[in-house]
């Protein structure tokens, strides 16, 4: 019995962490290529609205997820055009796109406010999913959770095991040097931005299709910003991002239970706990690991104009 309670808690932890992992993996790839996309929140919330709308119209969760990712991708294409193509300031463009995404999502989702639909189906494997204690956690989650895990593994593999990943990291480290070597700096950055946008949109779609299966304006509630912070504090490493997201999800659930149990601490202090715990853990993790060089991609946030 108590084992099932533990499992239930862990399942909520994982589902709280999933959107953060998906959005942060996309942002990690973009930042590793040297582009700081502060528009994650906007792409996420647009993905949530469009994803829900598509799912309601077509009745298909899969198409909804694809629609959400597509919406994030479209918004990030605009961001890429501005920052990579026209070398506009990345911080200003990102902030503008967050505001734009919040506005657009309200427009796209206006006629869907208050509608409800079935949450995304969960995996069910006979016997395995019914295993006591671990069955639901490991074999009974929805597809988004498995996509998030695959993203962590895939991004790690891509960045450190493939030539394309090496090229991307090199471009994020020094665009002048890589351009001099003839590597396609702007093309790689644009693709990385698109990937980041699609991930942000997918993370948003998870919120409106699986986490809380309805659409409400601004329902991302700052998760895009948390994902951004996770990438920085996890020193641009996929596994640390995943660990940070799980820790964040875990403390979120924990403080909810603590508030319900009435510990006597003010609710606001408990609500702040996940943020403090995540930042502390990741700062400790990134302390004292290196004696030179930089943890961040060295060209992060700097725009690049080749002259020909």
């Amino acid at each position, binding site marked *: 019995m108590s084992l099932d309670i533990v499992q239930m808690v862990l399942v909520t932890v994982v589902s709280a962490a999933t959107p953060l992992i998906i959005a942060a993996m996309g942002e990690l790839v973009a930042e590793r290529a040297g582009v700081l996309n502060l528009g994650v929140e906007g792409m996420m919330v647009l993905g949530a609205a469009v994803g829900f709308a598509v799912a309601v119209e077509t009745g298909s969760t899969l198409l909804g997820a694809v629609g959400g990712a597509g919406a994030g991708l479209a918004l990030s294409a605009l961001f890429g055009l501005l920052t990579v193509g026209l070398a506009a300031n990345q911080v200003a463009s990102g902030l503008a796109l967050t505001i734009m995404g919040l506005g657009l999502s309200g427009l796209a989702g206006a006629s869907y406010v208050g509608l409800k639909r079935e949450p995304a189906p969960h995996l069910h494997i006979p016997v395995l999913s019914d295993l006591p204690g671990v069955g639901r956690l490991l074999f009974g989650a929805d597809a988004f959770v498995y996509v998030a895990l695959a993203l962590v593994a895939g991004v790690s593999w891509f960045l450190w095991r493939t*030539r394309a990943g*090496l*090229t991307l*990291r*090199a471009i994020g*480290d*020094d665009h*002048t*040097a*890589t*351009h*001099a*070597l*003839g*590597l396609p700096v702007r093309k790689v950055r644009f693709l990385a931005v698109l990937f980041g946008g699609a991930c942000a949109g997918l993370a948003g779609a998870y919120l409106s299709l699986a986490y809380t299966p309805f659409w409400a304006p601004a329902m991302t509630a700052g998760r895009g910003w948390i994902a951004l912070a996770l990438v920085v504090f996890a020193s641009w490493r996929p596994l640390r991002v995943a660990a940070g997201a799980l820790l964040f999800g875990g403390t979120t659930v924990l403080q909810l239970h603590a508030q319900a149990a009435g510990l006597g601490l003010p609710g606001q202090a408990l609500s702040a706990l996940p943020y403090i715990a995540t930042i502390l853990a990741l700062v400790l993790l990134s302390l004292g690991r290196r*004696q*030179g*060089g*930089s943890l961040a*991609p*060295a060209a992060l946030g700097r725009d690049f104009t080749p*002259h*020909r």
Partner: protein
Amino acid sequence: MRAPAIPPLSSGPTPLYGAYGIVKRFGDFTANDGIDLEIRAGEIHALLGENGAGKSTLMKILYGLLEPTEGVITHRGDVVRLPDPDSARRLGIGMVFQHFSLCENLTVAENIALVMPRALSGRALAARIAALAETYGLHLDPARPVWSLSAGERQRIEIVRCLLQDPRLVILDEPTSVLTSGEAETLFVVLERLRAEGRALLYISHRLDEVRRLCARATILRAGKVVGACDPRRESARSLAAMMVGAQVSALKPPAAAARAGERLRLERLALPAPGLHATDLRDVSLGVSGGEILGIAGIAGNGQAELFAALSGEVRAPEAEAVRIDGRAVGHLGINARRRLGAAFVPEERNGHAAAPGLSLSENAVLSRHATAPLTRFGLLRRRGARALAQAVIAAFDVRKAGPDPAAGTLSGGNLQKFVVGREILAEPGILVINQPTWGVDAAAAAHIRQALLDLAARGAAVLVISQDLDELFEIAGSVAVLHAGSLSRAMPRAETSRAAIGLLMGGSADPAGPPPALGAPAGRPEPAHAEVS
């Protein structure tokens, strides 16, 4: 359209690569103005010219980084287009950059893998790097991150990366500017071998004696035009320099016997543990420099030069205050500004990022190192007019060429920025000047200017400490030379009592640095003057 000074172009077999009538304009600035160049297989072709003569632009065009405004490039007689470096590499053109195109946070192997064919990576690549290192004596640890490597080691990566692509034409931009004479010898052996293999080499260097030794043909550029072609073996370094500059390069004037004041800078048994995994420990380093004296510190990159400079400047504090003395005062615990107020000045090795902030204007850069010693602030507020006047004084005194009244430091060519950072410190009339690699990657005229300024400063009674990998330079200006090897400093040997060979041996660590200098050959007489002034 061809400049009148060129002899008739091809007279013989079709050149391997040719560039005809190359014009490149940036806005209304013409960097290349009708350049013709032919490169044949099996030759080392020198490209000579001062900073700003258009050599870099021409090389970038040949490597596909820039597209010419006018003109054509040919490969075995066929006109080719080089829209990007990848197509240049496919045509067999390789490049060794002067300003390294390396990613600091990637490892040596990763930096090399970036431009290798996809099939070559991981263990196979490490094996190839090791094999090449063995063949050519270019040793590299593939797993080290680039940020932990010295300038000399970084250049080795560039060379290895180029050679791994098995190029038909290798373009080398100032390849020896950071190498020691021993390392340069190794490189020359490599280059001779590449030529014997039938490859063509385009060799850009300010070191005219190297060009005279290696190259059978030279093309000389000035202000974007070809002003001459010659066989450097039949020219003197001075006549080559004259063609480059368009006027005679003045020989250094030795200072009138400087009044030897007392000892002004002293290091006493300074021991510093290495600040990082890949840095060098300083072991019991002692030295003294008197007023009017120039002490040279020779040594191969990565033997503690950066650490020694940091300890002298106060960027790293000494464990005991008495380990560093300026005019007799123990300053080991003082920071860089306190030392500046005592009359010391410092010029670090890296121009961009250490000596100057590339994104700031020259006047702002003047403030960076002079705020403690020049009246540049009032009530804590910056006096911009004072800063501009100081920058102008430096620009005028050191003939710094620049675009615009107060441009960003990063827009200056290497030689001009170096003249600016050296001039900034010298105009403070320091009693002690510590300078690391004073003429790294600087053209002959600017180098002569800087060296003369150092000689003059010493003649006015200052103690000058020059850390340099360039033995020619040390033998030209230093009164005595000590060698830094693996963090230990040899005793200082008066220039007249030692020789390049003896210093070279000490640099390689083959003699006890504390012992007497090895007796080698005939007793060294007058040291040879440096390269640009050989007549």
